[in-house]
């Protein structure tokens, strides 16, 4: 747990704002990231104060264009065939981790395990060669992160 005790604050900085301005003409404007604080191996408070919706979170997790969690993880849902096994089985994840721990692992797993294969779902800086239509945008919005956190908490 390399990040234990670390406090970090990440928000859309100047670089992101400039990127945003440059692409405002041709692409939908990206929303600046909500600021958040990492305490221990968790983000204790919901991003932007949003309230997660379990059912929406499930849909986002399964959507191949959004969370696409099944590409790497098995989930305890009947009829979802052929999950990946690059990441751990998510069955029981809500019992193993707190909401805050789940939130950080979605936002930026690399804070917890630097060499992880898991994408950082709420991060726009420090990335290399991001495709034009994705630049300056996180994979999921703050609300979507909270929805997925809410759903994962129900997997006990």
């Amino acid at each position, binding site marked *: 747990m390399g990040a234990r005790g670390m406090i970090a604050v990440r928000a859309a900085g100047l670089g992101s704002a400039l990127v945003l301005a440059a692409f405002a003409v041709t692409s939908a404007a990206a929303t600046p990231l909500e600021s958040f604080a990492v305490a221990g191996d968790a983000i204790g408070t919901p991003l932007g104060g949003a309230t997660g919706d379990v059912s929406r979170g499930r849909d986002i997790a399964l959507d191949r264009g959004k969370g696409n969690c099944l590409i*790497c993880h098995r989930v305890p849902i009947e009829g979802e*065939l052929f999950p990946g096994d690059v990441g751990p089985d998510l069955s029981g994840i809500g019992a193993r981790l707190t909401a805050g721990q789940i939130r950080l692992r979605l936002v930026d797993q690399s804070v917890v395990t630097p060499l992880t294969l898991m*994408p950082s779902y709420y991060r726009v800086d420090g990335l*290399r060669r*991001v495709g*034009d239509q994705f*630049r300056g945008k996180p994979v999921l919005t703050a609300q979507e992160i909270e929805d997925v956190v809410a759903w994962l908490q129900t997997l006990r």
Partner: protein
Amino acid sequence: MGGLKVLCIAIVLINGQTIGTVAADGPFPDEARRMRSANEFLSPALRAEQADPIRNRGMLWVEQGERLFAQPPPPGGAQSCASCHASPETSMRGVAARLPAVDAESGQLVNLEGRINDCRILRQSLPPLDYETDELLALTAYLTALSIGEPLTVSIDGPASAFYAYGQQLWSERQGQLNVACTQCHDQSVGRKLRGDTISSAVPTGYPAYRLEWQTLGSLHRRLRSCQLGVRAQLFELGSREYLALELYLKSRARRHLIDAPALRR
């Protein structure tokens, strides 16, 4: 094209069904030793189709390539491929296994597609063919199929070493919105599943390959682009120095693996 009589079109029979093997003789780079043949990741059904000259859809392009190689040049063209390269079954055998290589004159890394286009421009007075056109895929497939069973033998010494190093760097660095490096999947997670797909060692002996997902033959560069799309990265151009460097890197780490193109892939 009207009235052009189609005569008997022979199936090109390629000697030896050497599927998924490595040359047995000689020393063996450590990397190649742990590389698993792409065919290990194929289902028995797809493997059987690949070995069957009628069911391997890539053979349609090999057949087309054989015809293009032999046919007289189109209007404006200077000469045919065959007028320089007689008896291609012997004279061109092994050529695909040695590419990409650094061109002595230009100092640039050139792969088989590039060599074909160099010939078109310099020797045939024909315009170059774009990547992923049936014509370029067909010529590439035909010439690669003439090296079936030959081990990959690309050079990474001398002038090629800088391209190799660049390829290795591109392979190792994270990219895209999903922030994933090639090596994280194709070295560190080989054999694991991404959905129903098994992550392979990225041994490129089967390219150009017929991917069921594409429903057509495609180049190795197109396959590299597919992974870049997957991690939501900025795409390199097909034929770019980046993809060429990656092609050299991949073919180097798979040295001694035997060419089995055109392969079938999911």
